[in-house]
Each structure stands twice: as C-alpha cells, then as structure tokens.
C-alpha cells in the first residue's frame, strides 16, 4: 500500500504520526508525547495539532476510534504506518548522505 502522496513530512507532522505508532491517543496525549520525545524542542499548540489531526484524517493516515465525553482517540492506519516508514527511509538516506559527505 502506498503511503503519503503529498511530499515529505514536516517535523511536527513526523512526531505526531510517530505518537500513534504504539497505541491510540487523544490530543493532549499527543502533545505530551511530542514534547517528551523531543525534550521540549517541538511544541504543538492546539491549533497546529488540530490542523494536523484533521489533515491526517482527510488523507486516511489516522482514524478516530473512540469518543468518550470530550476525549477523542485516534489510531494510525496501515496507510499511516506506510507513510511513516517512507519518511523514516527518506530521513535515513539524508543522514547517510550527510555522513558520507563528511567522510
């Protein structure tokens, strides 16, 4: 199955998609995950997070799985995993190229 068709992921996109790999999460959990993972380097405001979640849903990379009161839980889809793997391969290639260039 093909992953994301709209070019490489930005850093916030990459980490948001990564947050769903282990389990389903709600919005605030995603923010906490990203901040913890990047040691506060990448911060997500609710506007940015909502835009990303809506974008990923539209592209079929994640899906809403549970609504409990105000808490909405999303999970990554197979297409989302594929898109993440592609991005990871691209980043690996970037790192390898950089290291080769440095000697």
């Amino acid at each position, binding site marked *: 199955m093909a992953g994301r068709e709209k070019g490489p992921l930005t850093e916030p996109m990459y980490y948001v998609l990564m947050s769903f790999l282990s389990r389903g999460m709600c919005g605030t959990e995603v923010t906490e995950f990203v901040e913890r993972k990047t040691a506060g380097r990448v911060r997500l*405001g609710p506007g*940015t997070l*909502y835009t990303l979640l809506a974008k990923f849903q539209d592209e079929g990379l994640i899906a809403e799985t549970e609504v409990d009161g105000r808490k909405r839980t999303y999970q990554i889809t197979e297409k989302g995993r594929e898109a993440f793997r592609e991005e990871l391969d691209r980043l690996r290639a970037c790192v390898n190229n950089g290291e080769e260039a440095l000697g």
Partner: protein
Amino acid sequence: MKHIYRLTPVSMYDAQGLESWLEDMAKRGLFLKKFGSIWCSFEKGPAQALRYRVEPVREQDSDEGWGRPSPMKELYQDFGWSCTANIGSSMLIFSTGDENAPELHTDPELQSGLWKKLYRRARWSFWFQILLMTVVIAMLCIQLWTGNFVRSLITSTTPIILLYLPLILFQIPDSWAELQKLALMVGQLEAGVPLNHRSFYPRRNRREAVSLVLAVVLLLGLFAVQYILPFTGGGIRPLSDQTAFPALTLEGLEGQELVETGYTEEKYVDGETVTVNYSNFSEQNHYLLCWNQWDVIQTGRIEPEDWHRLEIQWYDLPNWLSPLSVHLARELLSDTMGLKSNVWWTSPEEGGVVWTVNYYTHFNNRFLAVAREDHGFQVAAVSRGNRVALIKYTGNGSLAEHLEEIEKMVQ
C-alpha cells in the same frame, strides 16, 4: 444580563486588529458575547486580562448535532481556550484567561494554509463585487445607448441603482485594502514568521455602519419602487375620473358618433362602486421621479366593424426634472416608432413600415412632433415645461389637425 453594544472598529479579516481591540475591551470589563461586522455585543464584568485569537474554520469543523460542539472547539477547550463567538461560518473567536494556555499555532506554515483558504474566498467575493458593478454600469450604458435612459430613469428603479453605484465604488478601496492585508498575512505565515497578535486598530469606524445603513435604505427603496409603488395608483378607473389634464378624445378626432365597446365590470374605487370599461379607462401611476402619471385608453367602433383606438401617456415631472422633458418626449416618440410589426397597430408586413415625421415645435423646453406611418397609425409627442404626453392613435382623423388640443394637454 445587560448587553452593551460597540461599533466594530476593524474589518473581520483584520484578525490582529480585532484581537487587540477585544483584549483592550476585556481590560475595561467588556467581554465579547456576539460578533457583528458593524457592531459587537459585550457583557460587563470585572476587568480581566484575556487573550483573544481569531481562527479560520473549515466547513467540516461546524458543530455536531444534539448541541455537541465541533472536535475543534473540544480540543481547544482541552488546552484552555474556549470559543467565545463566531464570525459568520468562516471564523471563530477563542479566548483564554489562563496565562499558561499554549499559543494556538506553533507552525506558521501550517497555519498559512487555513488563512489562504479564507483569502481565496475573500478574493472571490471582491471580484464578484467588481463584476456585479460592471454589469450594472453596462446595463445603464445599454439604456443610454438605446435611447431609453430618461424614461427608465423616471419610470423604473434606475435612480436607486444610480445611487447604489457610488456606494459600491466607495467601498472598493476599503475591500481592496482588506484583501491586501490578508494577502500580506498569508505571505508572512508562508515565510515561517509567526503572527504578531498585537496590532494597531482605529478607535472608531463609522464608515462601515453608515454604508450598511445606506445600503439597507436603498434596498428598501428598491423594493418599494419595484413592488409597492405600482399598486398605489388605484388601478384602472372610468375616463371621467381623470381630471389632471384635458385629454384629447377619440370622438373629437373621429368627428362622428362612436359606439363605445369593451368588457365592463363593477369595481370598488375610493369607497364607491363604479363601472369600469376595460377598453375605455384611465389609470394613474406613481413613479419615484414622476408621482403623477396617467394612462388614458379610449376604444370605439364605427358601425359596422371599423375599430379605432387612442392611447395617451401623460407625465407630470417634478420641476427640477423639467430640463429632461424634451428628451423624454423624443424618447417616447422614437420608441413608439421603433415598435416591431407584430404589434397590433402597425403593418403586418415585415420591414414595410415607413414613417413621416413633422416637427412643429422644437426649442428650449418645448417640443411637439407628429409622426404618421403609411398604414394610418399616428403618434404625437409633446412637452412643455415639466409636462410630457405621448399620443398613439389609429383611426380616420388626423393628429396634425388637433395640435392646439394636444398642446393644451401639457399646459
């Protein structure tokens, strides 16, 4: 709770100006309840430092059924931002008093996508406004070109449309400036520069309110002129009810006894029951620029089957429009002469209509001309001062022999 109203000093697309104004209002103890492009309503309370943010929304971000707010509002709420008001269906205003609540956007490029959609919508609506204005101007030019301008100015909604044009023209520079501001904002976000939420805003913006009031008044005027005025003349009534001017009579033109024909009906006019003949009647019309206009129709038959008809259109213009009376008379004359052959009084032969026109008076504000078509249809147009009349006639008589009576109609 008592609501306090204030004129909105900025356009709805000036997000930073609007946010700054709302924050200043909150510092004075006025908290936004409802947003309007002309005025906003506020609730009074203890002064507080609040942060306001304007957010574009997508169609799919609208509230869910059964009073459930949209996922967007719920997520923002989780981070301490509550939705205060909406700006139409395209934007929402969020506010927070929590100093620790994170800024809504941490990725300017991603945020630019939201504003770009709004910019495209605003741009489309701007060009639609220009297109609409061009169409109106084109329609007015066509009227001018086809020689019906004075008549449509006097008997239609054209004067109101003419008043609308400066109003729209007056708004175009403002709309363009708003559009440019929005484009600048999108450009800034696309370049990765976050928005500065503090910006200058004017203290008052009465122009928007005045424009809106004028637009509403003109719209009501347009409606009244188009749909209410035509019913205020009282409908058709007997010929004898017309006393505004001494009308030329069909009998006087024919010079012999006519049999009055036509379908008759009892009608309730001005509190009295009168018999109205639908082939012999008078009718008063009110127009915005000509309050006193009459149509007088006379039909008769000379035994056994010789039908004759006389139609008079009479206009009493306001004095300040008297310079247009000669133009109106000329327009009415040429318009009647230009009628196509499928009209009952002209020749049935295609292209066979030949007119002979005699101009008797044509100077200053006086005009009198009689035109005769080679199959017997006659037209006379007369004007003097602020009065104008058009006479259409089919019969054995000659309008040219009744010039004095024709002139008397407009004296």
